């Protein structure tokens, strides 16, 4: 059995693979949105004066960053039913990916907020802003500029990491590739096509990310993206 261009092109344009890719995209987006919200709340809790809130957030980040996502997914999908918590494949996949993402994103948000000059805090306070206004009007818009490059990298990572959900039979790109491989045994062709699929998705996202970063850098005339991006390996 040698390389078959026919099979390659068949998979490349197969509806089944496209379906898998689409699932990868929405699974990533949904998990990212939920994960970022969780991470944002966790970051504010981590920076709170209240030791209980801080403790909860620290524990969350410690636990989820200290264990592999694959293990978390298996526990959620296959382990929890043992104590009566039964989640479907989709719910399990989203939950696992989102909660995991939140733990990473919390640190990114915290770093972003801490990167804003202390003088900004003083100036906003002196103008009579309370915590909410200070955050909304002064701190978060500036932190966003620092958060966006690593956030983009996280999403790039999410597109690829979501393939782990195939182990709990989530019908995304890799899972569909696996199934085709089991039927036709064109293993190399189908996985190369899957790889190309991921490559296309991350490349398109890369282009979008660049535009978003440029938008947030406009008032500053400069760029922090190089530094911030380099400091956030996945």
């Amino acid at each position, binding site marked *: 059995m040698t390389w078959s261009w026919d099979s390659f092109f068949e998979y490349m344009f197969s509806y089944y693979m496209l379906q898998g890719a689409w699932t990868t995209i929405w699974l990533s987006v949904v998990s990212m949105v939920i994960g970022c919200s969780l991470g944002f709340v966790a970051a504010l809790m981590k920076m709170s004066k209240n030791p209980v809130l801080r403790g909860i957030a620290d524990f969350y980040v410690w636990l989820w960053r200290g264990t592999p996502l694959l293990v978390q997914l298996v526990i959620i999908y296959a382990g929890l039913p043992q104590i009566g918590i039964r989640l479907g494949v989709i719910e399990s996949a989203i939950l696992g990916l989102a909660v995991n993402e939140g733990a990473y994103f919390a640190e990114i948000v915290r770093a972003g907020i801490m990167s804003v*000059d202390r*003088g*900004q805090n*003083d*100036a*906003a*306070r*002196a*103008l*009579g*802003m*309370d*915590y909410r*206004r200070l955050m909304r*009007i*002064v701190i978060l*818009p*500036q932190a966003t*500029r620092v958060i966006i490059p690593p956030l983009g990298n996280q999403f790039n990572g999410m597109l690829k990491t979501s393939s782990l959900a195939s182990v709990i039979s989530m019908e995304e790109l890799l899972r569909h590739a696996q199934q085709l491989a089991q039927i036709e045994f064109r293993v190399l062709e189908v996985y190369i096509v899957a790889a190309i699929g991921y490559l296309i998705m991350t490349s398109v996202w890369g282009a979008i990310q660049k535009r978003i970063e440029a938008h947030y850098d406009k*008032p*500053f*005339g*400069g760029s922090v993206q190089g530094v911030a991006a380099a400091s956030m390996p996945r």
Partner: protein
Amino acid sequence: MDTMNDQQASTRQKTSGNAGTPSSGDLMVDARNVHKAFGDNQVLKGVTLEVCFGEVVLIAGRSGSGKSTLLRCIDHLETIDAGRIFVNGHLVGYSEENGKLVELTDKQVAFQRRDIGVVFQQFNLFPHLSVIDNITAAPVHVLGVDPEKARAEARDLLVRVDLPEKETAYPKQLSGGQQQRVAIARALAMKPKVMLFDEPTSALDPEMISEVLNVMVDLSKQGMTMIVVSHEMGFARAAADRVILMHNGQIEEDAPPTEFFDAPKSEATRQFLAKILR
């Protein structure tokens, strides 16, 4: 003074002990025996300062003498360890319960700060907002002023600080002197009753200092109550009613400018003047 104290006593509910006596009626800022330490470092060791309505007070002193800390305490940007600070008759940052200071909530402190404008050494303009948005942010979002009205007022303020053409510029595009003038306009937009200046010209190139001082002199002529931490002795002579020297966390000298420069009472003042006037 006694009659004024009596008059004020009726308007204030909780008074107890010597430190809790009410603030005199014509005092804009009334700091009493203020103590502040950062760790083991005693920065303010019992500072008492009274500033009347419309008065312009310049505070000088070596770095580390506590002058900036005192200013920050007046706006509750720093907490205090002991003493009382009243601004416009209100105890700043705390309520007094059984002779003890209890810190106010975030919202209450924010409300108090509306009366107090602060200009910082590093300008601290909001870099993500244009000049006009810097000026209107607080009036619109804190006071609830109509955005169009706030913009009109901001334009008037930009004329006052001589920057009418910079409305749409971002802070990064302005010189230090221009940024500091925008910062003054931003503080004035809240219509404060007192303005605090924390070394407003120390971060500026020499050729930009006068443009900022001119704005400040104008402001003093319009009757604004001002406390200015600075070593600009020219400003002191031109606009200050009193000059204060802080030394090791205490007020060493408190005199009208002529007396401060020509006949200082304290040795620390003489040494300070010898250093900066050389």
